[in-house]
């Protein structure tokens, strides 16, 4: 799996024998990223082998970029055996959409876009306020698109370390006809044996990077030299202080009366719905800076940046029961 990095690794072997156990002999060290990468490739290949119509959910965010890269490795030298799909909330940061389109163009892959706006127009999803988060509404558009194309597996970049309902979810997560997750009745998942059998209308949600942490994702992005939307790196941005968080000033999130707009050095740790994703103060302009920052952060990725998970302890679990990925 190494390619060019192979020689770098073997020079480190001598210093590592005291850390890893004996028996590896002449083998180059097998580190956590190698193991996680190989596991993810194994999972991606199982999806393609077992499912008829898989799709990769791709937002242009860092986790979906990692899954896309892993998929290219898994099926090399063949083309990606599935399309990408983005469920566009209409609340995306423009930099992320631009990046998404650039990636799709560069790789020559097929991207399907289905929008929450369209679901709202059709009366399938309803909004209370234009500025409300559309994370929950995404589920409606996603489930409709699954039925439209007959997808039986949706690959996604969710990780178990993100949130405690996700910490409970299987790698191959069965969803009923309504896209719903039944956390009390999950399929047992033993060893690396994945049961992806579904009836028509049902589907699997599959998370190849379930066992990765935020730090693993950043280290892997650095090791593999992956491109990311500029939002992840420190930049100057207009924000207002609200509670413990810095709210970005956007057309959807204007400053409230009495709030002071400031321009600050910030970066985003996640890039979701504009109405509920906040940047963190940061001067990390390079991947090395970000690695250092991630290692010493005192807040979790979602705790620092998402306002929607904080409304109730069970928000994520409830959304998943309704079809969210």
């Amino acid at each position, binding site marked *: *799996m*190494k*390619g060019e990095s*192979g020689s770098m690794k073997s020079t480190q072997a001598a210093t*590592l024998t005291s*850390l*890893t*156990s*004996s*028996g*590896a002999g002449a*083998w180059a060290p*097998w*580190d*956590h*990223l*190698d*193991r*996680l*990468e190989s596991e993810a*490739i*194994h999972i991606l*290949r*199982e999806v*393609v*082998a077992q499912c008829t119509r898989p799709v990769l959910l791709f937002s242009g965010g860092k986790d979906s970029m990692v899954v896309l890269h892993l998929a290219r*490795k*898994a*099926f*090399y*030298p*063949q083309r990606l055996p599935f399309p990408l799909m983005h469920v566009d909330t209409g609340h995306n940061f423009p930099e992320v959409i631009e990046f998404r389109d650039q990636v799709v163009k560069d790789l020559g892959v097929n991207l399907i876009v289905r929008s929450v706006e369209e679901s709202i127009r059709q009366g399938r999803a309803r909004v209370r306020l234009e500025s409300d988060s559309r994370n929950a509404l995404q589920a409606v558009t996603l489930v409709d698109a699954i039925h439209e194309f007959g997808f039986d597996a949706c690959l996604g970049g969710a990780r*178990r370390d993100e949130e*405690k309902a996700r*910490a*409970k979810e299987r790698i191959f997560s069965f969803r009923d006809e309504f896209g719903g997750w039944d*956390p*009390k009745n999950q*399929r*047992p*998942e*033993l*060893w*690396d*044996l994945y*049961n992806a*059998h*579904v009836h028509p209308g049902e589907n699997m949600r599959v998370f190849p990077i*379930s*066992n990765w*942490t935020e730090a693993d994702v950043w*280290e892997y992005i650095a*090791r593999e030299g992956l491109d990311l939307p500029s939002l992840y790196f420190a930049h100057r941005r207009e924000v207002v202080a609200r509670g413990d968080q810095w709210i970005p000033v956007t057309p959807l999130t204007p400053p409230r009366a009495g709030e002071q707009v400031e321009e600050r050095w910030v970066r985003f740790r996640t890039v979701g719905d504009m109405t509920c994703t906040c940047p963190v103060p940061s001067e990390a302009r390079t991947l090395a800076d970000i690695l250092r920052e991630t*290692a010493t952060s*005192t*807040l*979790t990725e979602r*705790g*620092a940046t998402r306002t929607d998970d904080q409304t109730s*302890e069970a928000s994520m679990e409830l959304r998943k029961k309704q079809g969210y990925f």
Partner: protein
Amino acid sequence: MENKLKNCQEILRFITCGSVDDGKSTLIGRLLLDSRSVLADQWAAIEATSTRRGQSQVDLSLLTDGLQAEREQGITIDVAYRYFSTPVRRFIIADTPGHAQYTRNMVTGASTADLAILLLDARKGVVEQTRRHAQIVRLLGIRKVVIAVNKMDLVAYGQEAFERVKQEFLTFAEPLAFRDIVFIPLSALNGDGVVLHGECMPWYTGPTLLELLETVALDEEALNSSFRFPIQLVARLSEENGEERRGAQGRVESGTVAVGDEVILLPAGRRSRISAIETYGGRISQARAGQSVTLVLADQIDMSRGDMIASVAHPPKIDKNFEALVCWFSQTPYDPARRLLIQQTTRCIQGKIDTLSARLDIQTSQLIPSPAQAGMNDLVRMGFKVQQPLAFDRYEDNRTTGSFILIDALTHDTVAAGMIV
């Protein structure tokens, strides 16, 4: 990379088991807290919940009990995975439920673990649940076991109490023949012996729990076993000398493989040689257990998903019949009328249960012959017959090629898991 050490970390996967009263959640909480793996917002959230419930101390179990139903009932129902790291290693904890009615979920968590931490209460020693958990750990082939003798604060941190529990466990566990057991006295509540030594047990000179987790030798068993490569997919590669080359995509599940090695394709039994090992990063000369690669054989022989490429010198068994120890998961007991699929490595075929010869009484380790049925959470010995020959090893010898799941052909539920004997 600036931090070489961090970039070459290994991952240790372990399970924690023990009944609720033994302080399992507190121990995990203590490990996470003292290794500085609980972040400020996670702490604030569980602090707020504890206060709202009128608890005087922060309830550390809230860190792992992620489902609404679990928080409502204050119990662990399903496996939760937690991740933490120290400068030395990465850890994945599978926090598994202790109650008998969730045995199947403990089996699930144990199936991928390298090590098990079994908690005992220093005052109570070996209890019913200890016996069941130790049995499951043994059956699932976890070689490394840490017996955490907890609540040492309640026995005045006395060495005699620790030694008594240790002897009691060793006597009970003798027939289980664990290869590698370590005993550690600790107090999860006060933190002694978990991450830090503390000053209460000067008589104990061994490692703390975290020191042990950081230094325990990682299993090289898969690496040192015979070569096994179940084919996931067959890929069309580029043409070479006007001939289309096909590659077997999969993961080396055990052993190692190098270009030039003589191998056998099973179940067909055709021999060939490895002509190339392809990866996205380029061709490599050898691959090891754990690595996902594409293998090209020197001869264009027909191969497909579900076939296995293996060592010629030490091939697996090929048979349509085999015996296995099975953990039944489904709420519906075994019914001979239902059609079953057997999924073993990458092969999924029809099969049936020929015999139900015994049930294992997990409390007494006794095999009870001719049970009337196999119900949820039962461990039974069954004989199987499958439609086409399977390539397999004994689970004792190979956790990947010796394990399988049973799928109900009609409902698609995973109804049981088996280990070939």
